[in-house]
């Protein structure tokens, strides 16, 4: 019997608010241990949680970006459990009345067809403290860092709409793009600002029942999620073939061994309404105000880039992957460079160069102005594309303008017929057999000759002019 996988994800995303969720402590979990703490996030006796408006605003923007229905009334519950990372004995989360319900994200499936993946709900939750396990001499000790306690999270719970590791990975990529666009979250699985648990079950292909699921945790990249799901599908398929029952439990992904292993069951505590944090009432007016703060989202932007700039769909999709990238692209185009050239140069040259040097678009020394200058030189044929690549490198290394670099490092393109004619003559003399081939009708030989001429000119000759001169000379 053929089985199909039924996959749902639970994703925790850290909101990049300035403060924690219920107190004024800075939301900087990475600082020196226990420096961002106060009686509230330590939950000392007498502390009263004070829900931060910024958390509500950023969480709401995230919900809107995910096409969710923000609920007019939501509330916090206490998720009760006892563990050293949670010394108050409960975690404030929205279990019974989440901030938003439903919602969806569209992906392209393996066959390239659009597929809508539904969300079940999005709710707010405080993060817990971080346990650090060390040794003191030979004695193992556990330390608790409260910097993370009370930092704001949203949890996104999907419907079990995914059928393959590919679906899940595409979902996470699309989710990350949407959320990063809002400016509310960084969504880095590598840095732990996005964490994903996957629920996986199998059923006979084409069925509609939901069978016992297995939860997999501890994946810290999108690829790990794909690998862990693929492994789990294989493992469960083998179990079913061997007639072993699937039992509800949690497994951990081991990225080294590339397997999942059963973990000791974490106790699921009850959820009771919190009596201290007031219910959250959201009015239509406030919600409209929030919606007006939402930037143009990727899908709208792709369509606009296609129409306004004549980009191909793929090019537009690439230029909108990140909000900063799309804004950079538009800034360069506004300075007069032609959109498709800009898109291709960003994708093929600038992006890899920025990544290689560890910059972001916002911190890169190649500002939109300098990059636009470079593209303009290229388009005016003052430099050829070889030289343009060299100028780009210099743009990272100096503060000069592209023109200054071109002049100072003599990257200017030689288009002068006289100067090029000398080179052409020399190439013809030195490559008699290629010349012979060309004359005998092998038109491809001219490419070789132009290449030789480029070499002689140290890459500065205008290849188009070279070709013309060769053709004229070798008639």
């Amino acid at each position, binding site marked *: 019997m053929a089985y199909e996988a039924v996959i749902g994800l639970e994703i925790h995303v850290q909101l990049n608010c300035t403060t924690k969720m219920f107190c004024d402590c800075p939301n900087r979990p990475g600082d020196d241990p226990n420096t961002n703490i106060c009686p509230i996030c330590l939950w000392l006796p*007498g502390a*009263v949680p004070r829900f931060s408006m910024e958390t509500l605003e950023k969480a709401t923007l995230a919900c809107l970006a995910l096409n969710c229905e923000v609920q007019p009334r939501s509330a916090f519950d206490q998720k*009760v459990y006892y563990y050293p990372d949670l*010394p108050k004995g409960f975690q404030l989360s929205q279990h019974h009345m989440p901030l938003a319900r439903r919602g969806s994200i569209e992906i392209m499936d393996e066959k390239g067809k659009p597929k809508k993946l539904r969300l079940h709900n999005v709710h707010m939750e405080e993060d817990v403290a971080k346990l650090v396990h060390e040794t003191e001499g030979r004695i193992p000790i556990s330390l608790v860092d409260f910097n993370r306690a009370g930092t704001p999270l949203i949890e996104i719970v999907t419907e079990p709409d995914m059928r393959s590791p590919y679906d899940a990975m595409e979902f996470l990529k699309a989710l990350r793009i949407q959320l990063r666009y809002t400016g509310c979250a960084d969504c880095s699985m590598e840095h732990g600002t996005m964490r994903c648990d996957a629920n996986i079950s199998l059923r006979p292909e084409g069925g509609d029942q939901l069978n016992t699921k297995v939860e997999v945790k501890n994946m810290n990249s999108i690829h790990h999620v794909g690998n862990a799901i693929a492994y789990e599908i294989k493992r469960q398929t083998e179990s079913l073939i061997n007639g072993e029952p699937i039992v509800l439990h949690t497994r951990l992904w081991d990225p080294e061994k590339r397997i999942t292993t059963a973990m000791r069951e974490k106790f699921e505590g009850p959820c009771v309404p919190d009596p201290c944090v*007031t219910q959250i009432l959201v009015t239509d007016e406030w919600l409209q105000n929030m919606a007006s703060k939402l930037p143009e989202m990727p899908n709208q932007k792709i369509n606009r880039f296609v129409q306004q700039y004549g980009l191909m769909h793929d090019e537009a999709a690439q230029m909108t992957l990140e909000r900063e990238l799309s804004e950079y692209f538009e800034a360069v185009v506004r300075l007069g460079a032609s959109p498709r050239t800009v898109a291709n140069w960003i994708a093929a040259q600038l992006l890899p160069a920025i990544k290689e040097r560890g910059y972001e678009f916002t911190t890169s020394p190649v500002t939109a102005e300098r990059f636009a200058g470079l593209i303009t030189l290229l388009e005016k044929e003052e430099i050829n594309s070889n030289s343009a690549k060299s100028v780009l490198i210099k743009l990272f290394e100096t503060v000069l303008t592209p023109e200054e670099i071109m002049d100072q490092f003599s990257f200017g393109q030689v288009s002068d017929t006289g100067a090029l004619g000398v080179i052409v003559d020399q190439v013809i003399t030195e490559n008699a057999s290629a010349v012979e081939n060309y004359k005998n009708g092998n038109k491809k030989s001219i490419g070789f000759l132009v290449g030789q001429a480029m070499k002689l000119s140290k890459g500065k000759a205008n290849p188009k002019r070279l070709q013309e001169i060769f053709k004229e000379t070798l008639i």
Partner: protein
Amino acid sequence: MQEKLFTYMDSSPSTGLNDGLLGEISIAIQPNMSVRGWPIEAGSRALEGFTAIYDATVIKRLKQAGANIKGSICMSELGFGLAGDTGAMVLNTGEVDSVLITDTMGEARMAACMAGVIGFKPSYGIVSRFGLIGLVPSMECFGILAKNLDDIAKVMSVVVGNDSRDLSMPEFGSGFEIPNFSQVFETDEPIRTCGIIKECLEILEKDESRAFDAVISRLVKSGLQIQEARLKDFDLDRIVHNVIGSVEASSSAGKYDGVRYGHRTNTAKNWNEMYMNSRAESFGLLVKNYLFQGAYFQYENYDAFIDAARIRTRLLAQTEAALEGLDVLMLPTRHAAFDPFSACTINTVYDVFSWTLLSNITGHPAITLPGMVTFGDVDLGLQLIGSRFQDARLLSTADRLIDLA
């Protein structure tokens, strides 16, 4: 004597020379109100050695008004019930003018009733809870014991009002106002009508009934209008308070793990045992029972909690309806005939407080006046429940009723 009544006395108390509004008032508090630098053990070994690192908003306001906060009294564990509480005794020694005690089930009113003084519990939400250590956040409330209404009004006028550190307080100004306690007794607005609750009177003993009837007929003779009000689910307050209270207590007390402060066990092999043994050695039997019960509803019978929350909403609606067109509801502050100070099962504690629970459940303001409901050996307090956020009016009504009776 003092040593037994007080658990801590300020070594450098204010001289009372301050010209603030409370410059001539001295106060004792329960050691569950944070005063910077004071031991705040809330009557529990679970907070043994815990010292407050900031002032509760209430304390900050009292200090600013010049009040002389003399020290803290003995209190029941985490303010649950009255076992061992010395508040009313300290007041009766004349050492202080007012005692502040948490009212979760009616403790302020009941302590007052037993000691023959006045006990007041304001509307839920008009006094900041920041820095107050409690057990049942949705029911408990700052309460006051005093010998006269004047002192209560003075203290209230200082502590009342919004606090940016406690956002659970309602937003005043949008439909209702912060009660104004400054000229409570100068009003000439006549008392309209007072209500008596049919469902309460039906369960009074014969002598209690006589005592209550007597005060009512005195008031009627003095010209007061009395009207019968209905509170169909009055007898459900006990179960509602018990279920919701224990559930909230169970989570509220979750933070007492003996790790950062409080008693920590010597006998543990791992952290799990450390939690369990520390907690087992810290809590008294009564609180332990209450926490167990709350955990039971959380883990095993959540539906009962949902039912209780639903009935609570109904009780609120019934109380509001009963108060419609009335100044106050009147009922006795009745208590069972055994010694409440040694009560140590949940049931016996609820027996003591069954007549004061209502306003903790609904958040209405309530006050107990001594010496007015008497017959033979029977001496019940007269309890008045006012409309929410009409606390000042409740005090002025109480003032006039004392005159009328």
